[in-house]
């Protein structure tokens, strides 16, 4: 999926069977699916924590921009890149 194809109002969520987990043993965030483990860097983890099926893409970007005092356009790009890649792997639903 292209990053532009994700609408501002889409509500990203992790499908059943996909879980974000903090791995205490290795001290890192992981995104888990059957037979699959992806490392989530701190930025990805902050994005995925907000993909609860409640917030829209726009709201998630606003929240991140406010929480980290970062440039909104830049965060928008990061979020879209991450979600488009994960949607292709069927690890995020939009």
């Amino acid at each position, binding site marked *: 999926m292209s990053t532009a194809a994700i609408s501002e109002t889409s509500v990203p969520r992790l*499908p*059943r*069977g996909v*879980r974000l*987990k903090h*791995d205490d*043993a*290795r001290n890192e965030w*992981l995104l*888990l699916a*059957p*037979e699959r*483990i992806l490392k989530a860097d701190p930025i990805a983890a902050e994005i995925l924590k907000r993909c609860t099926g409640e917030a829209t893409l726009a709201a998630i970007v606003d929240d991140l921009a406010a929480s980290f005092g970062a440039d909104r356009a830049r965060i928008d790009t990061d979020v879209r890149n991450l979600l488009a890649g994960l949607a292709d792997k*069927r690890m995020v639903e939009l």
Partner: protein
Amino acid sequence: MNAPVHVPVHVPRPVGLLAELTHRCPLGCPYCSNPLEMDARTSELDTQTWLRIFSEAAELGIIHIHLSGGEPASRRDLVEIVAHCAKVGLYTNLITSGIGLSEERVAELSRAGLDHVQLSIQDSEAESGDRIAGYEGAFARKREVARSVTAAGFPLTVNAVIHRANVSRAGAMVKLAIELGAKRVEVAHTQYYGWAKTNRAALLPPRAEAERAVAEVEALRAQYKGVIVIDHVIPDYHAHFPKACMGGWARRTLNVTPAGRVLPCHAAETIPGLEFWNVREHALADIWYTSPAFQAFRGTEWMLEPCRSCPRKEVDFGGCRCQAMALTGDARNADPVCHLSPYHDRVEAIVSEDTAAEAAPDYVYRRLQRTPAPVA
């Protein structure tokens, strides 16, 4: 057993644990990878011991738990086990034949926090499927189980093992998986361990048929992109290089047998001279880091030529130790599937011998010996 374990820095933490909760199973599939000598119900670990293992597994850094068997639904404490795994943060995958999973039980497993279900199918046609499973009505039952699993909201993977009796319907099985509502299908050509080895002459498909099946499934991968994810395990005996068996010996995963022996892979007991430790006597971390069987082929130091000086030695770790043992008599040899192995011709010889016969021999169905009065 509670002494602190010295954690060697160079040994990675395991990521997966295959829990063979029981060897009991209503089906009798001749391709089963369980050993011929199976654990009786009376020797199975009790509930409390399993719960302890899963707590230790979580602490050790294990991420995925695969609840398997035999048929894991044959354990009456399955729901309790799943609930405990969920509580300690493990990702749980149920590997099942579907027999013994009523709709209520599926709902209970869902409430207990099970993450994923993997259901086996034997063929795309009922009659042949039931014959392979050695169980009348299995095919119809599996359809119902798939329905209740997807209705409960579980992501479903369908698993199909390919051999002589169904090799011409590999593509049809992918289509059946879609019809059953699976998001993922595993098409795996038979690996010849345990019962599958006993039945090798009945199971091994002629090379041309196996190749046709591989091509058919690969074509479907493109066609069904976005509909279903296809994981394809191509036939070992037809490959050029071996697979990195288990991702390397004692590098990623471990297996616990119904009676509590801990193995680096499910067939490891076919290698003579290895010392396996039991969870009844040792902590899981201790077994992972220091038990002799796990140390035996860890890393690359144990390798002989041609692996020892091969640039692929950290890629495939010399393939499968059990296959090297079975076909060359020494587990340290390169997996003879590798074309660089001096024993590679033995693989070729088996393929032509076992597939030469016009009619395949009858199956030896997997059966657990009857045991005296069950406990618990």
